[in-house]
Structure formats: C-alpha cells, structure tokens
C-alpha cells in the first residue's frame, strides 16, 4: 500500500505567549518552539499502523522552509520511508487554498492508495487543506476520522461528529482522510530509527519542478489583533444566597444555562 501523509511544521503556541510582529500580519517566532502539527502526528501514526498491517511505503510531504526538514526527519524516524519538502521559499505568502493546489501539483505525479492529513493546523486553524486537496485530486475524502481500517480494498471509516456521535462510512480508494487527534497513540522514535533518519535524503522540490505556474489565492490575511478580553476576577459578594444568585444570573446572561 502506498500512503502519503501531509504534515506541517507549526509554532507551538498553545501554552505560551504569542506576540504580533511588526508587519501586523505575522507573529514573533524567535522564542517559539516549532514542532509537527498535532493532528498531523496522528495522521502519520495512522499511516505507520496501516503500513505495519498491510505493508507498503509511506511518503511524508510538507510545504515549508528549510527548517521543515527537521520535521520531515522526525517523521522518517517515526516510520515514514520517504520525505519530500516543497520549497516554501519559492513562494510568497500563501493561503490555504494555494497550499492545497501546490500540494496537489506535487502529489498528482505520485502513486498512492491513501492520503492522510491532520484535520486542523494549530496555527491557521482553517481545517480546509485536506478536503480541498481531495477535491483537487478528484478523490473521495472523509474528515475528522477517529477510526480507520481497510477491508476489501475499501476504507472503513468512522468520523467524529459533535456530541459524542460517530458517523460510520464506507469509502472507495484511493481517498484522502483528515485525521482527528486521539485516533491512535503517536509513537516515539527509537534511537535506531533516529540514526537511520538522519542519514536519509529528503527530496526537495522547487516551484520550477511543479509543472504549474499559477496558484489562485482565495483570501488574504489583512491583520492580526489580540482579541479584546479583560480578565480581572470579579468577586461576587454578599450572603451565600446573594452571591449565588448573582452567579446564576451571569450564567444565564452568558447563555451558559
């Protein structure tokens, strides 16, 4: 089985301060730690599990700058066989739609049965790359996959819906699946694989090699701003009855009950 996994190197911003840079359109990256986008790690693990089960090859692909090769190398250490970097430095600022088109132009020349992507990136958070890419490649897709298997050359897929409900689907291959976190437990890389990964050659593709010149943009980011919030604890005073009533009132007002 030939599997392609699309991954993205993203700044880890969940638990740290994020500051807007001087352009107003990006963030200060000096002090941020970069790592594989969270749901992408699950996508990769799912690929490795499938490879362990059915055999085959995994190719990881990422559109990014040179540092992205570190991220690709981690994927190699965790079980991918080949890695491709598409040189982001050949392009200007890209939106998600352009990214999908670039990925598509690179992937269309490859053999694949299954493509896995993460279901969302933690930086831009559009949840659109995977599904768009599937459409561009003209293959079926399913997003937010929380259970995956292959039977009789078709994918047996469960998607996560709101409220704890699961949607069970049957999809023909080749197809693309965006993977939800929690579908599996991403593995660690062993030192042996780390060692092997450091010696592997990552294929780097420039814009010239994509056989496509124009990538249409859907949107442009105009500005970033800090959401207006003010967090200063408001102590609700008075008797127990009074303070409780005030709190219940706040819940109501905020539509929480």
């Amino acid at each position: 089985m030939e599997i392609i996994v699309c991954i993205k190197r993203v700044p880890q911003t969940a638990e740290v301060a994020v500051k807007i840079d001087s352009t107003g359109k990006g963030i200060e990256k000096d002090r941020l730690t970069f790592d594989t986008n969270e749901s992408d790690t699950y996508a990769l693990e799912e690929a490795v599990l499938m490879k362990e089960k059915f055999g085959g090859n995994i190719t990881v692909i990422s559109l990014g700058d040179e540092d992205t090769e570190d991220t690709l190398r981690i994927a190699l250490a965790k079980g991918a066989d080949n890695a491709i970097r598409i040189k982001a430095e050949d392009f200007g600022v890209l939106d998600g739609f352009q990214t999908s088109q670039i990925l598509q132009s690179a992937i269309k020349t490859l053999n694949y049965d299954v493509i896995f992507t993460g279901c969302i990136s933690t930086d831009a958070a559009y949840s659109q790359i995977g599904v768009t890419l599937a459409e561009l490649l003209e293959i079926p897709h399913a997003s937010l996959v929380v259970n995956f298997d292959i039977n009789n050359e078709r994918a047996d897929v469960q998607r996560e819906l709101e409220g704890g409900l699961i949607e069970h689907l049957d999809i023909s291959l080749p197809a693309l699946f965006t993977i939800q976190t929690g579908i599996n437990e991403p593995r660690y890389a062993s030192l042996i694989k780390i060692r092997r990964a450091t010696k592997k050659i990552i294929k780097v593709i420039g814009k010239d090699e994509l056989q496509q010149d124009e990538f249409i943009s859907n949107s442009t980011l105009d500005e970033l701003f800090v959401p207006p919030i003010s967090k200063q604890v408001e102590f609700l005073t008075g008797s127990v009855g009074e303070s409780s009533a005030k709190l219940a009132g706040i819940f109501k007002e905020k539509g929480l009950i």
Partner: protein
Amino acid sequence: MKSKKSMVTELNQEIREILIEEGAEDIYKCFQCGKCTSICPWFQIEVFDFPAYTFSLKTAMGDMAASEDKFELEAEIDMIYRCVGCEACTDQCPHGISTPNILRAARRLLVDFGSYPDTLKSVVQKIHSDANPLGEPREKRADWANGLEIPSFSADLEFLYFTCCLTAYDPRMQKLSKATSFLLKKAGISFGILGEKESCCGEAIRRIGSESIFQEVSKANISNFENYLVKKVIVSSPHCYSTFKNEYPEFGAEIEVSHITEILFDSIERGTIIPNKEFNKKVVYHDPCDLGRKNNIYDEPRNVLKSIPGLELLEVEDFNRNLSVCCGAGSGGLWMEWDKDERIVNVRLKQLLETGADVIAVACPYCLQMFEETLKSMNSNVLVMDVTEILLESL
C-alpha cells in the same frame, strides 16, 4: 498491531557512538556492580524496577531506546524519563559514573526528534517563549516585588538576587522571595533584581535534554550578567545554584553564586541577623540534591536552623546529607506524574514524617512544591517551610 519481540540484542555501534557524542562517555568505566541501582530513589519504590546499572552496558551495546516495538519503546523512553537526576548513583559509584548523564545523552537525541513526554515538551516551550516553565508572562516576573521597594540591579549594588521561576510567579512560592528580600534587607546586604530581564536558569530543560534551548536561555542570562556588570548572585533555588556555578562557566559566565542559606548563615555569624523569637517546633531538614550532593552545602542551612532559639533540629537517620533521598522533582520530575504508588516524593515524605517533626524544612522551591502538594492529600498537620520562612518567623 504488536510486532514480535526478539530475544536477541544486536550490537549497534552507531547508537553507542552517538550516545557517547552526546555525553555518555563514562560507560566504559562501569563494572556492573549495581550499587547505583540500590542507592537510587526508585529502589525504594516497591512496585517499580529502575535498573540504573544496565544503562552503561545497554549504551555500550547500542541497545538504548532501541526497540522496534512501539510499546516496548514507549516503556524504554518512560524509563529514561524516570531518572530524577539526583546523582545519588554518581555519588556512590566506585567510578563516579553519572547515570543521569548517560540517560541525558539519550534524552538529547529523543528531544531533537520530539520523542519525549508531552508534559515536558510544554515545559520546554514555555521556558523558550516565556522564560519560565509556568507559562506566565515575562512582564510579570517582578510582580512579587511590588511594594517591597527592591531596586533594579545596577553595578553599584553588591548582589543580584536571582529568583527562581517558581518563587517569582507561584503565589505560594512568592512567600520565599518576599522572605528572602526582607532578610537580605535586614542583614544590610546591598542587592537588586533584574525582574523581567531574568530568564529561567534552564536547569530543568537541560536535564530534560533540550540542549539547544537551554543554551539559548542561558546565554540570555549570561549576556545580562555581562551587560549589568553582575559579579555576585544570590539564588533561592539550588537548581539555579548548580547551573550558574557548574554549568554557566562553560558558556563564559564569570559570576560568584551564593545560595541564600550561605548568605543567611554568614549574616547570623556576623550578627547582622539575630534570630531571637522562639520557634518551638521540631524541625527536620531535607537536603536538596542540588545543594547537598551536587554542591556540598550541608551545614549552612542546618546552622541557620540551629541558630534559631527553641528550634529542635532533627535528622532522618541513615538518609541525610549525601544519603538524602530526592523529592522526585529533579530532571523534569516536577512535571512528570507517575502512578500513586510509584512516586519518589512519597518515599521521602514518609522518611521525613517518621522523624516526628512538626515542620519539614527545605531549601529548594522544588522540594517545597513536591512535599506541600503531596501532604495536601495526606491529612497531615506537618508544615513544609523554607529555611528563609522559618528564619523570618524567629525575627
């Protein structure tokens, strides 16, 4: 799907070589006596086996974190992150081999490949971004000092008081930094703080294995020291102490570092601090690894306590000074969480409580945090206090 376990270990020179490059060069000294293993705090955990003595051999064989099986590998990496870096093994090893260093070699490689526990990843990110492991804003680093009239450090002041991240941000720990600044003033010592210019000393992330980010944050501190002409530093945390004293010189730092207990004992001896209020409690002193075993400061904190009238100083028999047992917080342990019956802190706390003390005295914010948090679920009236807090009460 679980792959089949192989009982054959293959020699892998490459793994050995890279681990040696990352600092595991001591492995050839090991003669497999196993003393490290039974002195290790994990030895006292009944339900868990931490085979410290195997790491040299496993490294030499290239059999470290080498399993091809996902679950076995996870267990191996889990093991690598159990080590609290207390150096009890190093202290007792006939050849002075540091198991923490051997494991750190593996940790460095694993960190580069994101193959380490998520809780520690978050610590690394926070220290990198916010200069503290709590993820609190840099701008608030000096908030503990609001209203205390502590000057910003300048070259005309003798000492820089470098707060630990915990004592800077955590409301409970801020009592330590406040007590410290009060005592320093009382002793007539000229000092200032750097506030938001301070970065975490980086000790924890270096031990976690994140060498590159450690170097980044430590260099930020070192260039601050240079820019502000800092010559002498007082620290609350033995972890800062160890790092400044033993590791920053690698990167060109030229500072003289004192732990607060050294300064306080000196002040008591010189009579600038006179403890005169009785503190009629039985106090047991817990030796922090980074202060005692790693830096040989055993007597100063004890002497401070002994100088307090009414205070009865107890010792944990057989487990004091260099034979003290780690609180479990070292080398990332503060953020790791093991099953309830697999916690080193419980072992140490039991030993401390068995002395019948009313107060557990500590000289390290990490130890304080570990003991106090654990005591909360124990229904005990025993207090955990920093030496500075106890001294403050006797003034």
